[in-house]
């Protein structure tokens, strides 16, 4: 009996020590992300190719199909961003009513919607009115596909630099692209063989080269933002005088701020007779005649020196938080508004001592103020365009009654209209409504307001204040916001009479729709 007790004691002790010894390996601080060896094709562009090997990430990615939930300022309903009149899904309480006016003469006046999940990128691309669907040709370069599909890698391998300036509509049919399976997907950020993060983007790779960076030596932390910076950035299309026509470029050589980007665009346009680059411009504003720059979603540029970005927090930290699914910890691949989560778990990986309500209030504190100032900066910008337009008219009809320096004054005024609009558009086009960088946002809007105001004053001075009475009063009465406009409506002369600025547009020749998504509906 004694030996039995002794034996069981020893056994128990042995068992216990084995358990303890089992946990004797200390953690490694190297934090190696898992690397795989898949049998997926190296040049795969299809999301479905990845489904079998990575079911958790695939399922998470498919959550991007959710297109119903709105937050206070953002969300996933693709409402028209100028429409604060109609209810969802057409309009939304926080819309920017002057967008169509401010982009008069540019495809953005036809349609510009709230962004939604990556899974809709191709669908929304094929339905947008910015690309001409009333003719065989879309009138825009194939570069427009650059941030919509991993198919870009195939096309660039096939056509090289001649791809960019082909017409966008050459690639919209079913034999060119599978709308659903080849939308933004796994291959845009992952090497299909190892699943390591990799850039597919030509303009980002160009910038890495220009700035002396090598992807392979970058930290995992930098890559967790740069995969997003392949697309969530301001860009422009190369002018044929300066390189392959329509090749996309990120204008970052002088820095990421609005002033840096404005300075960058004082060059990079067509070359003049002496071979010098003139200022770049995207379009000529149809009311003021000013050569304008369009800003596009500068998320990376905005965030990179903000409170989170400067502290090294990456895009993925907030937009792809780790979550436990089936007991496994994986990055969420539902890239959407972090504010949709009632628990704000993504934030609380760091702000563990804060409640979700507190954190949401802090975001809204920034967004409420940023959005209010944005609308004011846009009103000032409309007034600036109108001032230059009135001055142009006045100068044409009163060549004798002008300020002696009117040419110089008008040149300055036009430049300030352009600069003011670059500044507010830098904020407007950015998708965090200030949150990614609160100080830069409000500083940029204040500067924008100031430039637009100066433009008004200079245009008034150029006409010896003859246009001042016409500019006095509420800008919404002087230049009413354009609520409705599209390529179809522009074929209707009566529609163009409904707004003083629409009168300035040419009537488009009547035409039936040629393209409906991937389908050709009329032979022309």
């Amino acid at each position: 009996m004694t030996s039995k007790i002794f034996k069981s004691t020893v056994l128990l002790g042995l068992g216990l020590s084995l358990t303890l010894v089992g946990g004797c390996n200390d953690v490694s601080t190297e934090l190696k992300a898992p690397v795989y060896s898949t049998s997926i094709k190296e040049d795969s562009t299809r999301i479905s190719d990845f489904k079998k090997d990575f079911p958790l990430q695939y399922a998470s990615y498919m959550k991007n199909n959710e297109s119903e939930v709105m937050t206070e300022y953002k969300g996933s309903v693709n409402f028209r961003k100028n429409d604060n009149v109609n209810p969802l899904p057409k309009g939304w309480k926080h819309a920017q009513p002057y967008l169509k006016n401010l982009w008069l003469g540019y495809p953005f006046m036809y349609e510009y919607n709230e962004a939604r999940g990556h899974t809709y990128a191709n669908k929304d691309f094929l339905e947008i009115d910015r690309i001409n669907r009333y003719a065989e040709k879309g009138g825009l370069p194939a570069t427009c596909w650059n941030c919509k599909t991993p198919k870009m890698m195939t096309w660039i391998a096939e056509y090289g630099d001649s791809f960019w300036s082909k017409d966008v509509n050459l690639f919209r049919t079913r034999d060119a692209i599978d709308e659903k399976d080849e939308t933004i997907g796994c291959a845009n950020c992952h090497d299909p063989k190892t699943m390591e993060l990799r850039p597919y983007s030509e303009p980002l790779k160009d910038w890495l080269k220009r700035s002396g960076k090598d992807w392979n030596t970058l930290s995992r932390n930098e890559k967790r933002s740069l995969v997003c910076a392949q697309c969530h950035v301001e860009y422009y299309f190369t002018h044929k005088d300066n390189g392959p026509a329509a090749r996309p470029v990120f204008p970052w050589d002088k820095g990421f701020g609005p002033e840096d980007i404005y300075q960058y665009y004082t060059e990079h346009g067509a070359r003049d007779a002496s071979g010098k680059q003139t200022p770049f411009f995207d379009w000529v504003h149809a009311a003021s005649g000013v050569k304008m720059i369009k800003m596009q979603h500068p998320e990376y540029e905005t965030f990179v020196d903000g409170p989170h970005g400067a502290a090294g927090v990456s895009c993925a930290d907030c937009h792809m938080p780790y979550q436990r699914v089936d007991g496994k910890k994986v990055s969420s691949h539902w890239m959407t508004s972090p504010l949709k989560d009632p628990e704000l778990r993504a934030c609380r990986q760091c702000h563990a001592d804060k409640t979700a309500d507190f954190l949401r209030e802090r975001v809204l504190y920034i967004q409420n103020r940023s959005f209010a100032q944005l609308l004011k900066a846009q009103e000032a910008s409309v007034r600036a365009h109108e001032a230059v337009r009135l001055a142009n008219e006045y100068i044409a009809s009163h060549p004798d009654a002008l300020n002696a320096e009117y040419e110089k004054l008008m040149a300055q005024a036009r430049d300030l209209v352009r600069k003011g609009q670059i500044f507010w558009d830098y904020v407007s086009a950015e998708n965090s409504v200030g949150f990614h960088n609160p100080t830069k946002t409000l500083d940029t809007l204040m500067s924008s307001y100031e430039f637009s105001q100066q433009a008004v004053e200079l245009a008034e001075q150029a006409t010896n204040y003859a246009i001042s009475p016409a500019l006095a009063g509420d800008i919404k009465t002087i230049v009413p916001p354009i609520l409705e406009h599209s390529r179809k409506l522009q074929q209707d002369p009566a529609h163009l009479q409904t707004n003083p600025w629409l009168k300035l547009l040419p009537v488009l020749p009547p035409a039936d729709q040629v393209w409906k998504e991937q389908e050709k509906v009329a032979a022309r």
Partner: protein
Amino acid sequence: MEKPRSSPFLKIFLCGLLGGFVIFAIAAYAMTVSDSRPFCTTCHLMTEAGVTHKLSTHADLSCNECHAPHNLLAKIPFKAKEAIRDVVYNVQGADLPLGPNSVTREVVNANCIACHARTNVDVASMNVKPYCVDCHRNVAHMRHKPVSTRMVAYD
């Protein structure tokens, strides 16, 4: 009528004494090991805590220097209770933990004071903030550092 030296009573007594000593030694050893980072990080759920601990100034102290009461009478039941909860939690495969509960907060804070009382002897540093880590925030596992410096997938 002297009892023989090798009476069964003495044998049993000595065996018991030896057994008790061995059990005590194993228990003491087990208590120490199960306080330590290698033991705690056996569950991958704890990797983030383990990595940030190992990178921190407190790396050479065990987890339970902070996370359990120092007093043995309080420590044993505390460890048992926490262990059961952690095992259940881990088996359930629930979502990521979001920081310590209020009981653990109190225990950790008491242990800040246990080691750093002398530093704070002349100041009312416990009067304004409820916890020391309300100011010494990154002592709470470097929570404000970018996620990639703390975690990887499949841990």
